[in-house]
């Protein structure tokens, strides 16, 4: 069953000099329980695309169906309610700096009208899920990047969403911390059955946890399919370019040429 379906999405921005078509005619759908990756070089339209999925950015044209409901047709209040089923985590964490970790995690519950004491109780549970229960009374400024992202994930979970959107969620983290976060995301995906849509420019993030991937280039999907198939046998120039980047990375890390050319 598809939990999100995007049809002919388009979004452009007017800049001083020209009209920028950030997203043009994008269609795809994501099944329930999938981890779907969207990869592209910077400027490919990834961030705009992910912001169109919960209408933080209102598309110029097209439709976004979440559980069969077209978000474009909802009024303000309905959209607010619909957004509560789509959590989002960000590259810069976007935590409330003046609130404790516990109250950050409880924030989506407060928004949904849950009492503060109940919100705190549930928040503590989700902090435990991400392994940060002991930091409940700390403030975001006292945490490392990886810890902040785990708080953000706990906050995303607290809303009990159907979908979690990740906008370059690991791009500000070192490789080891990235792994921790990816493991956490894939655990959440399995345990809670939450669908994850992950936007990134890092190949290895997609390789590690995504079932399917869409390669974005110039605001369009250049190629889409099973992660392994796309990466093993790229058909388009855009996908090949991403692979070349990865191969040069691997070469720098000291892998021998044969392994690289085999696409390992």
């Amino acid at each position, binding site marked *: 069953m598809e939990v999100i379906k995007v049809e002919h999405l388009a979004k452009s921005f007017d800049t001083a000099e020209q009209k920028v078509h950030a997203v043009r005619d994008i269609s795809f759908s994501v099944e329930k329980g999938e981890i779907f990756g969207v990869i592209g070089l910077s400027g490919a339209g990834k961030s705009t695309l992910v912001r169109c999925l919960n209408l933080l950015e209102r598309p110029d044209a097209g439709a976004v169906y979440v559980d069969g409901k077209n978000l474009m047709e909802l009024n303000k209040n309905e959209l607010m309610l619909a957004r509560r089923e789509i959590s989002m985590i960000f590259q810069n964490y976007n935590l409330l700096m003046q609130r*404790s970790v516990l109250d950050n995690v409880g924030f989506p519950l407060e928004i949904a009208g849950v009492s503060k004491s109940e919100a705190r109780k549930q928040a503590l549970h989700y902090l435990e899920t991400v392994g940060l229960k002991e930091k409940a009374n700390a403030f975001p400024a006292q945490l490392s990047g990886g810890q902040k992202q785990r708080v953000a994930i706990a906050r995303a979970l607290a809303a009990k969403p159907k979908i979690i959107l990740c906008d370059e969620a690991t791009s500000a983290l070192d490789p080891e911390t990235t792994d921790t976060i990816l493991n956490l995301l894939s655990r959440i995906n399995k345990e809670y059955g939450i669908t994850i849509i992950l936007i990134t420019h890092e190949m290895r993030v997609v390789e590690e946890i995504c079932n399917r991937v869409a390669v974005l280039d110039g605001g369009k999907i250049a190629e889409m399919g099973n992660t392994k198939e796309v990466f093993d046998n790229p058909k388009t120039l855009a996908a090949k370019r991403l692979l070349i980047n990865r191969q040069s990375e691997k070469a720098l890390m000291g892998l021998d040429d044969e392994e690289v050319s085999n696409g390992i």
Partner: protein
Amino acid sequence: MEFNAELVKLLLDGLWDTLIMVIVSTTLGYALGLPLGVILTITDKDGISPHPLVYKIMDIVVNILRSIPFLILLIMLIPFTKAVVGQSYGTAGTIVPLTVAAAPFIARLVESSLKEVDKGVIEAAQSMGANKRTIILKVLIGEARTGLLVGITISLGTILGYSAMAGVVGGGGLGDIAIRYGYYRWETGTMLVTVAVLVVLMQILQGIGNFLSKKVDRR
């Protein structure tokens, strides 16, 4: 005048008048200026409810009010003050123009504090399905609270300065005493003592403001 019971009483009365004027005007100033500052923030083009016409009108009104020197505003507002509090003189008569001067100033301070709040955090709240009220109260005001407190301290200091001109309409207070005794009567001693009390008052306000804003800041 010698330093005696009479002077002490004069200063205490002046201090009381000043405190009443400053505190009441700043409070009323915030009652008007805080919502104005919020509107200026959210209706601006990057705000959560962009509304160019509302923003432009408020922007111009605030600028006009802020460009009138307080002494002139005080005089211009006499008929209005009379209509509001029934008299255009005394402490009550001063609170009205002080409030009118404070509100736009406070609106700007509030606006600049609220605009410091990270856009990403506002976006996060929007993505969680927060309504505007929640974003204003819990994200904008909640996250900007340190800046807002600094703003209160600055406002108290500025209003304290304006209140010195209250003497023109018989408003009383320390500034009035300093001008009457020091300037009109050449009693330099009295003037200096009055100014010293003002200095101490300002230090205390600033000290409390700094202490509180540091205490609530978790960044």
